[in-house]
């Protein structure tokens, strides 16, 4: 599998660490335990498109967001997390 790193370009997936669902945002300071429970444990696991965090550990050491189809492994895009830098 090739992962499109927004900085390094298309790279072998073995350079990356996968973290999973990039959807949920960490609850703000003071949020209740239930919100944090959802953030930590209730992560999306769709059969289809998912936006997920990958870490280019053996490359530019950046976290990126990759859009991928979990049924076909087809990767449709790599981007920086959050607002554009």
């Amino acid at each position, binding site marked *: 599998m090739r992962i499109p790193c927004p900085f390094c370009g298309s790279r072998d997936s073995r350079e990356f*660490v*996968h973290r999973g669902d990039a959807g949920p945002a960490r609850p703000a300071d003071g949020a209740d335990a239930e919100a944090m429970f959802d953030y930590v444990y209730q992560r999306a*696991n769709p059969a289809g498109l*998912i936006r997920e965090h990958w870490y280019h550990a053996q490359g530019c050491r950046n976290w990126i967001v990759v859009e991928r189809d979990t049924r076909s492994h087809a990767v449709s895009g790599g981007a920086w997390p959050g607002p554009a830098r």
Partner: protein
Amino acid sequence: MRYSIFSLARQALHRHRGWGPAWRDAEPAEAGYDVVIVGGGGHGLATAYYLARVHGLTRVAVIEKGWIGGGNAGRNTTIIRSNYGLPGNEPFYEFSMKLWEGLERELNYNAMVSQRGVLNLYHSDPQRDAYARRGNAMRLHGADAELLDRDGVRAMVPFLDFENARFPVQGGLLQRRGGTARHDAVVWGYARAASALGVDIIQNCELTGFLTDASGAVTGVETTRGPIRAGKVGLAVAGNSSRAVALAGLTLPIESHVLQAFVSEGLKPVIPGVVTFGAGHFYISQSDKGGLVFGGDIDGYNSYAQRGNLPVVEDVCEGGMAVMPMIGRARILRSWGGIADMSMDGSPIIDASPLPGLWLNAGWCYGGFKATPASGYCFAHLLATETPHETATAFRLDRFRTGRLIDEKGVGAQPNLH
């Protein structure tokens, strides 16, 4: 017809024309069922069998989207063991081991349960101590465990790389009662025995939704073969747990990951039992047909594709060559991938769901095969009595909320690390 050498011989005289189907290929019953189990794998069929045999429930159906045993039950490396360290896990897996030990007589089906031992190699002092801790826990739970030193390992598996290894073998944790079982036979054996007790096995019947009543309680399933009413619905769909509960609007603390496995061409017997490498990702056994059956780590990304990628193939083979370089000229014949429902602490869930009428058997990660008998037994117990079986009390869904986790590896809520 009862299976035995005598019936086999009798049939041989008649060119085996007398054998009927091993199980009835049933149609959904209009009247519905007391319990519908979703998932015709080992766990689902075992659940149905024990519902019928132990609890006397015979209005039971198992629905399967494809052919029974086509998911993880037919895509694993057939290892059975009860070498767990934590009190939430060990009684359950030891119960499973005891059920394996009597399974063939119970089912009248030879599932080739073969207790040739499971040996986990260790390569460092801390790893030795961790295995000692685990072995001691196993002994406290009545299971067998032995801690071997290097010489003890050498006596068992002299062909390991003891001289030139990057991470030399120091010893191993051995469970002699561990071993393998013929995975397909387990499925067929449970199917045949359940069918004989009146359970309906309905293949090519995919879950598409849930029937609910006004209160939101689940009263049956929608399927590709129409609605089927049920007093209770039990899910035993392994890697597809998240997809199944999503039909009811639920989310589980589970991610689906692909685990690859490999088999070599047939070879004369060399590997005595199961051997796992402790300084890399590699485990191996040898089937009765002679194939080296081996695997390693999960690919590490969410997947429903039932196949993996090259990095893991290389990683597994590197592990194999590191620990037993005499397999270098053996050829890989075939690989496959199964979808493991990796839970957030690496341990399973056998519990009620938040929806009345819907019950869960999920989160088996990549170790569900060895659990098959006890998983069926305990899920049947839960479905029939609505109380957890005594060996499965820790497998609660709410443990992620309460923090009463069962994390054998201690890696936390990152499923691909378990």
